[in-house]
C-alpha cells in the first residue's frame, strides 16, 4: 500500500498562494492549482501506519491512509468513495479545518506531517469536477419527517444523513441563506460561498427542503413543528459571543467579530445587509482605520484578513495568553493537538500581533467613537493549586490608537433567549443544550441537539461529526435501527 519510502523521498508541499499584495485586492480563494503528480507525491508520503493516529485525530474518523493510498494510485473515484463514507462535506473541511489529523500524523513526530487536508480537498474537487457528486434520486422514503433547526455544518450534516436514510427533512434557517457560519462567518477568501451553494444545491435536489428567514419559535411556533414533524433536531450553533466587559465598551466602533464578518460576507455575496442571525445591521468597513482585533484565534485571524482587504491603515491582533512556542512544549507532545505558534495567510498579509496583553479600557473620542485601547503587558504563572494566573507588569500600560475593534474572544454558548428558553429545554453546566453523545436526546421527547449548540463552540469538523452521529441517533429513534455509518461503532458489531 502506498509507497513504502515516499516519506524519505518527498518533502511536504502545499499549493502556492498568490502573493499577499495581490490577494489582498480580492475576496476570492487565492491558492494556485497544484499538479496531480505533486498531489500524488504528497499522498505517497503517507506511511500507512499500523496505528494511524491521523484517523484517530480526525473528529470524523476520516480513513486517511486509505484515501491517501487511493490518490497515490490515481484511483480518485475510490478515494472519493472512501472519503464520503465518513465526511459529508470534505470541500468545507478540506479548506478551513485546522486539521487535527495533521497534528497527530505519525510523520509529524520528526518531519512535517502529510498534507492531509490538501489531499482531502483535492479528492472532493476532483469528484465535483468528474460529476461523481450527484444528487441521489432513488431514495426510498420512510414516510417520516424531521425538522432541523439551523443550517450550519451540524444542521447540514444532520439533514444530509437523515435524508439519505429516507426521511423527509426540512431545514429551518433564520438567516437569508443556508450555511450558518460557513455562509456568514468564514470569509470568502477562505471558503468561497459558491462551494457552500454547490453543496446545498445537491442537497436540495436530493429532497432536503431549506426554509430560510424563518426563526423557529418566532416565525414558526415550536408547537407547530413538534406537531408536524416526527423529530426535531436543534443545530443552532453557539451564537452567543463572549464580550470584553471593560470600561468604554459602549463606545461605537466595537463589534463582536461575527457581526463584522457576517455583514462583510453578505456584502461580498451581494446579499441583503443582514447578519448571520437574519438581523439587519449597519455596514462596517475597516478602510483607512487602525483596527484592533481582540483574540488570537482563527476568527480573529479572519478579522485581520478582512480588515486588510478593506484597506485598513493598520491591523493589530491581541491575545491575553502567552505567545505559543515555535515547536511543541514537553507537556504537549505528539500526538496531542500542537499548541504552537500559528501564522495564517491573513497574518502574512500584514498585521501586528501581541501576546500576554491585557485589555484594560476602551478610550473614546468626543463623538463616542472608539479611538484607542488601553493595554498592559502581563506575566503568567501558576498558583499553589496549579491554576494559571497572571499579573500585570508595572509600567507597561499604554494606549493603542484604533478606530475599529473586533472582539473575537470566542462564544459563550447557544442563544438561550427565544427558542431554547421558550421550549423550556434543560441546559448543561456550561449552558449548552443538554444531550449526550449516545442518543443526542434533549430533555424534551423527540427533540435532539447537535453541534455547537450541544457541545459549545468548536470546529466545523466537530459540527459535521455531531450532525452525523445525531442523525444516526434520530434514525434509530424513528426506525429502531439504522444503516447509517457510525463514527466508532462497527457495522459488524455483535450487539
Amino acid at each position: 500500500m502506498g509507497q513504502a519510502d515516499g516519506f524519505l523521498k518527498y518533502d511536504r508541499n502545499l499549493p502556492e498562494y498568490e502573493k499577499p499584495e495581490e490577494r489582498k485586492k480580492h475576496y476570492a480563494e487565492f491558492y494556485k492549482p497544484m499538479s496531480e503528480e505533486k498531489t500524488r507525491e504528497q499522498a505517497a508520503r503517507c506511511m500507512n501506519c499500523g496505528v494511524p493516529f491521523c484517523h484517530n485525530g480526525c473528529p470524523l474518523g476520516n480513513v486517511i491512509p486509505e484515501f491517501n493510498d487511493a490518490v497515490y494510485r490515481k484511483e480518485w473515484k475510490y478515494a472519493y468513495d472512501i472519503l464520503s463514507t465518513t465526511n459529508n462535506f470534505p470541500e468545507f473541511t478540506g479548506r478551513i479545518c485546522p486539521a487535527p489529523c495533521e497534528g497527530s500524523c505519525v510523520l509529524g513526530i520528526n518531519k512535517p506531517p502529510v498534507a492531509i487536508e490538501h489531499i482531502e480537498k483535492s479528492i472532493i474537487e476532483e469528484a465535483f469536477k468528474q460529476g461523481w457528486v450527484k444528487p441521489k434520486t432513488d431514495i426510498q422514503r420512510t414516510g417520516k419527517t424531521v425538522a432541523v433547526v439551523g443550517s450550519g455544518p451540524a444542521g447540514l450534516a444532520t439533514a444530509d444523513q437523515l435524508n439519505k436514510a429516507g426521511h423527509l427533512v426540512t431545514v429551518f434557517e433564520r438567516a437569508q441563506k443556508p450555511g450558518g457560519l460557513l455562509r456568514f462567518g468564514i470569509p470568502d477568501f477562505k471558503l468561497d460561498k459558491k462551494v457552500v451553494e454547490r453543496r446545498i444545491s445537491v442537497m436540495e435536489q436530493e429532497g432536503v427542503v431549506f426554509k430560510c428567514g424563518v426563526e423557529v419559535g418566532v416565525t414558526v411556533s415550536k408547537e407547530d413543528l413538534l406537531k408536524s414533524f416526527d423529530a426535531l433536531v436543534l443545530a443552532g450553533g453557539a451564537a452567543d459571543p463572549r464580550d470584553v466587559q471593560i470600561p468604554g465598551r459602549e463606545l461605537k466602533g466595537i463589534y463582536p467579530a461575527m457581526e463584522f464578518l457576517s455583514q462583510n460576507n453578505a456584502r461580498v455575496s451581494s446579499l441583503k445587509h443582514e447578519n448571520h442571525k437574519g438581523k439587519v445591521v449597519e455596514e462596517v468597513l475597516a478602510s483607512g482605520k487602525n483596527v484592533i482585533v481582540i483574540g488570537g484565534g482563527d476568527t480573529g485571524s479572519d478579522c485581520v484578513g478582512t480588515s486588510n482587504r478593506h484597506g485598513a491603515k493598520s491591523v493589530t491582533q491581541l491575545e491575553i495568553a502567552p505567545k505559543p512556542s515555535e515547536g511543541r512544549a514537553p507537556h504537549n507532545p505528539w500526538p496531542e493537538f500542537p499548541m504552537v505558534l500559528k501564522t495564517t495567510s491573513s497574518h502574512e498579509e500584514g498585521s501586528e500581533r501581541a501576546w500576554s496583553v491585557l485589555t484594560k479600557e476602551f478610550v473614546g473620542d468626543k463623538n463616542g467613537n472608539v479611538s484607542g485601547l488601553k493595554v498592559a503587558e502581563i506575566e503568567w504563572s501558576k498558583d499553589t493549586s496549579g491554576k494559571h494566573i497572571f499579573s500585570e507588569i508595572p509600567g507597561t500600560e499604554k494606549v493603542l490608537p484604533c478606530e475599529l475593534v473586533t472582539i473575537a474572544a470566542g462564544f459563550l454558548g447557544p442563544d438561550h433567549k427565544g427558542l431554547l428558553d421558550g421550549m423550556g429545554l434543560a441546559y448543561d453546566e456550561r449552558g449548552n443544550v443538554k444531550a449526550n453523545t449516545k442518543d443526542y436526546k434533549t430533555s424534551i421527547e423527540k427533540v435532539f441537539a447537535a453541534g455547537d449548540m450541544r457541545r459549545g463552540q468548536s470546529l466545523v469538523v466537530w459540527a459535521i461529526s455531531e450532525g452525523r452521529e445525531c442523525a444516526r441517533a434520530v434514525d434509530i429513534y424513528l426506525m429502531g435501527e439504522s444503516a447509517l455509518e457510525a463514527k466508532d461503532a462497527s457495522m459488524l458489531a455483535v450487539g
Partner: protein
Amino acid sequence: MIEKQGLYDPAFEHDSCGIGFVANLKNKKSSKTIQDAISMLENMEHRGGCGCEPETGDGAGILIQLPHDFLKQECAALGIALPGFGEYGVAMTFFPKDAEERQQCKDLFVEYAHRLGFKVLGFREVPTDNSMLGASSKKVEPHIEQIFLQFLDSNDPEALERRLCVLRKYSNRNIHREMPSTNDSFYISSSSYKVMVYKGQLRTNQLKPYYKDLQNLNMTSAMAVVHSRFSTNTFPKWKLAQPFRFIAHNGEINTIKGNVNWMRSKQVLLESTNFTVEEIDWLMPICDINRSDSSNLDNVIEILTLGGRPMAQVMMMLVPEAWQHNPEMREEKRAFYEYYSSMMEPWDGPASISFTDGKIVGATLDRNGLRPSRYCLLDDDTLIMSSEAGSLPVDESKVIEKGRLQPGKIFVADLEKGRIISDQELKDQICSAKPYGRWLKENKLNLKDLARPMKKTNAPAKGMQLLQKQIAFGFTREDLISVLEPMAKDGNEPIGSMGTDVPLAVLSAQSQHLSNYFKQLFAQVSNPPIDPIREKVIMSLFTNLGSQKNILAETPEHCRQIHLETPVISNGQLDKLRKLNDGSFKSYTINAIFSAFDRPGSLESAIDEICANAERATLMGCNILIISDRNIDQNTAAIPSLLAVGAIHSSLIKKGLRTRTSLVVESGDAIETHHFATLIGFGANAVNAYLAGDTIRHMFEEELESGDVSIKKLLANYSKAINYGLLKVFSKMGISTVQSYQGAQIFEALGIGPEVIEKCFTGTVSRIKGMRFDDLAKEVRIRHKRAFQDTSIDKHLFIGGFYQWKRKGEAHLFNPDTISLLQKSTRTNDFKIFKQFTDKINDQTAQAMTLRGLLQFKKGATAIPLEEVEPKESIFKRLASGAMSFGSISFEAHSTLAVAMNRIGGKSNSGEGGEDEIRYAKKANGDWERSAIKQVASGRFGVTAHYLTNADELQIKIAQGAKPGEGGQLPGHKVDEWIGRVRHSTPGVGLISPPPHHDIYSIEDLAQLIFDLKNANRAARVNVKLVSEAGVGTIASGVAKAKGDVVLIAGHDGGTGASPLSSVRHAGLPWELGLAETHQTLVMNDLRSRITVQTDGQLRTGRDLVIASMLGAEEWGVATAALVVEGCIMMRKCHLNTCPVGVATQDPQLRKLFTGNADHLVNFFTFLVEDLRLEMAALGFRMVNDMIGRTDMLEVKYNDPHWKTANLDLSPLLYKPNVPASVGLYKQKEQDHEIENVIDRKLIELAQPAIHDGAKVTGEFKIINIDRSVGAMLSNEICKVHGGVGLPDGSIDIKFIGSAGQSFGGFTTKGVRFTVEGEANDYFGKGLSGAELVIYPSKESKFVPENNIIIGNVAFYGATSGKSFINGQAGERFCVRNSGVTTVVEGIGDHGVEYMTGGRVVVLGKVGRNFGAGMSGGYAYIWDKWKEFASNFNNELADLEAISAEDAAELKGLIEEHVQHTSSKIGKQILADWDKELKNFKKVMPRDYKRVMDKLKAESKSKVQSSKVEVG
C-alpha cells in the same frame, strides 16, 4: 496414570526414544544376541527419560524371537507340555495386581480363547524383581504372565499367528468393556508364535534385573529389538513402553488424528481371504485415538501384514519416501507410490522404525530422515542397528561395514535367507510385483484432462450482487488491500510485522469468520517443523477425488480416482467435476444454506439436513460431493463452509462412509490461507473460492480491460499464494503432504462449544468451550443482514482493522490512546499518567480483549501496607526484555534496552543475531550494553563459545509467538557490515533461519542441546522458550526432565520483525492457557519445583503480572511495551526497513531519528513494578513467590455476560491440581545437570599449562558414545581467560579412541585439536568455534573408509570457524548453517550445506539430494566422479562453476592437509592423479555471495589502483 484435568489432557503426551536391534544374519540363536541388545539399550540411557524420582524410568523393553527351547523347559517344570515350535503361541500379558480382579480377567480371557478356537495350555507367571523400581512405577506395576495357546482349527502357523492377533484384540476390547477398571492393567504385550516382548515402565538398566528371564542364558534369539523411551510426563503407563508387537518407533506421527479417522472409514471396507468376516469384526477397531501414535501405527502394520502384504511393502505404504518431486526415481517405483497414494495417506512425521515379524528384521526412516539410524555389520554375521553408533562396543577389527539409514530408505535383514536386502533390491521386487504403472494409466484421471463443459455454470458476480456477497461472507477492505491484492498481483503471501493485539474471535465485538476460532497447531520440541521452501523436495500438494476401496486388496480399480495437482481449484475445474456422471464418478451438490431469519435451532437443523443429504448421496454412489454456498439470497444465509464441511466429514466418518466419497467445497467465505487450511484440515479434499476470484476480477477491472494483466494470471497467482501458504501451514506442524493433512485436524478451537465440536469437529481440542450453533448463526446473520438490508444508504465493504488499528475496526490493545499515554508517562516520569495507561489497558469491562480480561481478583483479600511488599529491586530480577535481534531492530534500540535492563538488574535478551563483543565490557559511566540472556536460535548466528560464555542465561528459542513453527529471513538490505560481522556472515547477503533447530528433532535432542549449553557455560541458566498451544504443558514437563532451568511460555501475540500475516494471526494461543497448562502439568508431575516458569506476550501492567503469577509464572518478559517506550508507534513496517522512528530499521538516515532513552525505560519498568506492588499490597501478598499458582484468588467476571461469551468455561484455566503440600509450586531446587564427571573435567585439568602458561599439552583418552559434548566445557574455560581469540593452534592436542558421543567438539574454541580414531555420532563439531577436528576409523578396521559412515547427522551445525578432516562419510545435513568452518569429508547425505553462509567444504565422495538449499555464502568443492552431482544440487541460490587456477591451488592444499591428518586413501588417489582428477571437481558458489565478493574484489582493486595513483 493421571486423567484429563484442568487444562491437562493425556492426549497431549509425546515420547521419543532410542531404538536399535542386534541380529544374527544367519538366524543363529544365541543368548549373546539378547545380552548385546540389552547392553546397547543401557548405553542409550541418555536418550530415555526419568521422572522426578531417579528410579522411575519412562519405559524400556526388548522384543525377541520366541525362545521355544527356553519356554519348553520352563513350562515342563510347571507341568505344561508345549507342542513344537509353530504349533502354539504365547500371549505376554499384563494382569491387574489385585488377585480377585486378575482371576476375573483370566476367566474372561480363557472364555474368549475357547470361543475363538484355542486351547489354553497353561499360564506361566513371569518371574520379576521389583526391588529397584521407583515408587511411582511400582504403584502401577502389573502382574505379568505368559499364556500358552494352541489353535485347534488349523495347523498353519500363519493362521495361528492371525488368530492370535484376533484373540488379542478381541479379548482386549471385551475385557476392557466388561471390566473398565482394567483399562490400564490388562494388556497383552505380544501374542505370537514367533516373537515375544518384555517391557515395562523401567529405566534401561532396570530391564534385565527386573525380568529374571532375561538373565537366563538359556534364553536365545537370533534377533532382539530394543527401545528406550523418553516421555514428556512422569506418569507413563507400563503398556506404553515399547517395542510393540511389530515395531519400535522413535519419532512422532504428526497426522495421527487424521490417520486414525481415515482408518475408521477404511476399516468398514476391509475384506480379506486371510480373515473371515467374523474375524474382521473381532479385530475392530483397528485404531483408537486413545492409544499412542506408535501403538496405532503398530496396529495398522499388523492388519496390513497379516492381511497378506510383505512387511516392507506395508512400510512403503505407510511411510512412503518423497517421490513426487524426484525426477531420478524409477518409473515403477513412482507408479507404486502413486498407486498406493490412492489407498493410504502417509503416516507423516519424523520416524525411525525398527520392525520385525520374527523372520525378518529391518528398519526404515521417514522421507525427511529426521531421526538418526546407524548400523554396523561384523564379519561374524552380527548386524547392529541403533540410534547411536558405538552404543554396543564391538571389536573394530571385525567390522566389515558401517552405514546409516537414509531418508525414505528401507533396510531389511532376512534371517531365513541369511542376508541383507538392500533398499533398491527390496523396492524393485515390490514395485514390479504388479503392473502399477499400467493400472494407473488405465484408471487414474487427471483433472486437467477432463472435458470442460460447454457452458460455464456461473457468471462472475458484479456490482451490487458482488458487494452483497462480499459483505455477507465477511470480506473487508483490508482483506482486499492487504491480503487479496498481494496474492493476486505477485503470488505471495502477505507479510507483516509486530504481534497481534486484537481480541480472540470469541471475545471480539465484531462478527467473526468461523475459521478465526481455530488456531493452527505447530511442532515444537517433540517433532520438528519443516522448511517448505528449501526442502520442497519432500513436500506435496496433490490430492485425489473419488472413492477408496478395501485396503487389504490391490486391484486396478483401486486407483480409479481423479488426480488434482493442488486442493485449490478454479471455477472451470469445479464445473468439470460438477458435470461428472459416469460409472466411476458421480458428483452431487449440497446446498449449505440456512434460514436468514432468527429462529432458534435453524442452523443446527440445516446442518443435520446437509449431513443426511451427504449420507444419502454417498450411499447412492455419488463420490464427489460439492458443498456449495452459492445459493444465498435475502432469505437464506450461508452455513459457514468450515462448519458444513466439518459436519459432513464427521458424520460420514461416524457412518463409515467417508472414504467412499470426496468433499469439494465451493465457498464464498474462503479468502485467505487459513480459511483453506481449516477447510482441508477438517476434511475438504478440494476448495473452490469463487467469491475471492470474483473479487479479484473486480479489483483489477481496469487492468483487465486495458489488457495489462489477464484474469487467468491473477487467479493463478492467487492460488499459487494459497498453495504456498498451505505448505507453510502444514510444514509448521512437520507435515509434508496435503494428503496427510486432510482431516488431520491440526487445530485447537478457542471458544467453540462442545455440541458444535462433537457434531462438526469431533475430537478437536476446545478447552474453554463457548459458542453454540445459535450463536454461530447469529454471527452469520449480522453480516447477512448488512448485505441484504433493504435501504437506499450506500453499501460498502467494512474496514477490517485486524492488521492495523482502525477506528471502526477490530479493537487493539495498543491504540492511539494507550501508545501516547505510555510514551508520555515514561518520558515525563509521571506515574499518574502511567496509571491512566494501565487503567485503559485493564479496563476491559466494556469489552474483554484477552482471557485475563474475563478474570477478576476475588474480593475479601486483606490489604497490607505497600511497604510490606518486597522491594522493587528484588522484583526487577524477575523481569526480562523480549528477544529481539540486532538486525531486526537497530543498534540504538537494542543497546538502549540492554543498558536499561542492566541498570535495574533485569535481563535483556540478545535475540538470535549474535552480539558484538564490544558490548561485553562495561562503559566508563557504569552502563553495560551486554545482554544477560544470549539466545540460541535455529540460525545460530554468532553463537560461539565466547558468546555463550558471556551470558547469565542461555535461551533456546524453540518457537516465536508471532510465527511458531516457522523460520525467519533477514533480507540482504538489512545486513550491513556491522550486522554481517556480528552474525559471521557477508554484508548484503540475506540470511535464513531454518524453521527447526537441526539439532532438535525430539525431546531427547533438546536434552542434548541443554547438556551442550550447560557444558559451554556452567554458570548460566538454560532457558527453553516455547509458545503456548494445546499440549505445551507436557512439552514443558519434557523440558524440565531434559534439565532445563527455565521454561518460557510465550503467548501467540508476541512481536516479529517479519512474518506472514496469517501466522501472526492464526498460530499459537494466548499465554494464559499455555502458562496455566504448564503450571498444572508440572505440579501434577512434581516437576514444578525444579524449573522456573516465565511468560511473555503483550504484558503491560501490574495486573497482567499478578495474573501471570497466579496462573503459574514467577518471571515475566516484556518486549512490545518496552519498544513503545523507546518510541515505537506500532507502524508494523519492520520488514520494510522504513521504521520512521529508528527502532526497527538499519537505514542510517532513519536510525538517527531514534529518540529512545534508557531513563525512559527505567521509568517504565519502575512504574510497572510499582503498579505490581500496589496490586500485591491490595491483595495482601508480601512476596511474589506467594502468588505463584494462586488461581484460588481469581474468579471469572460474571456481571452481564455477552451472548458470545456466556458459555465460555474458564474453570480449566483456574484449576488447581490436588497435590500434597510437599509438592513445590515454584522453583526451589536446582536441576542435576550431570556434568560433574564429564571427560572435559579431565581435559581442563590437563590443559591448565596451555591456558595459563602458553605451554602445549597432549593427551589420549578412550571415548564411548555416552561421552557427549566433549570440548565445550574446556572451551568455556579458555574463553574466560582468552576471550574469543582463543589459543595458538594446536596448543591443546588430544587424541580419543572409540566412539564419540553426540556433539563431539561442540563449541570448541581456537587452540584445541581433537583427533578421533574410531567414529562419532550426531552433531559432530556443532557450533565449532575455531578448533580443529580430525577423525579416521580405527586402525584395526578392515572396511574402506570412504564407503562407510564415520560421523552422524547434522555435523558442524552453526559452526563459525575452525577446520576439520573426516576420513569417511557423514550423514544428512552436513554443515547446515556453517558460517566459517573449512572441512574435507568423503561423502555426505541429503541436504548438505543447507543455509550455509560461510566456510569451505570439500566432498571427496557421493553427495545426497538437495545439496546447497538455502546456501547463501561460503563455497564447496565436489569431487563428482560419478557425474551425478547436478541432479542432487539445489540451484535456487547457488551455481556450479568451473575450478579456477586459484581454486585448484586452494583445493589441492586442503586435500593434502586432509591426507596428512587422516592418511585418507581416496585423498592420496586423487592427489596421485591430480591433473586428471581436478577435472572431476565442481565448485558450488552462491549467487549473492559471488556478487558481493566480486564487488569487494573490484573495490579493493580500485583502492589499490587509486593508492598507486597517489603514490605515482
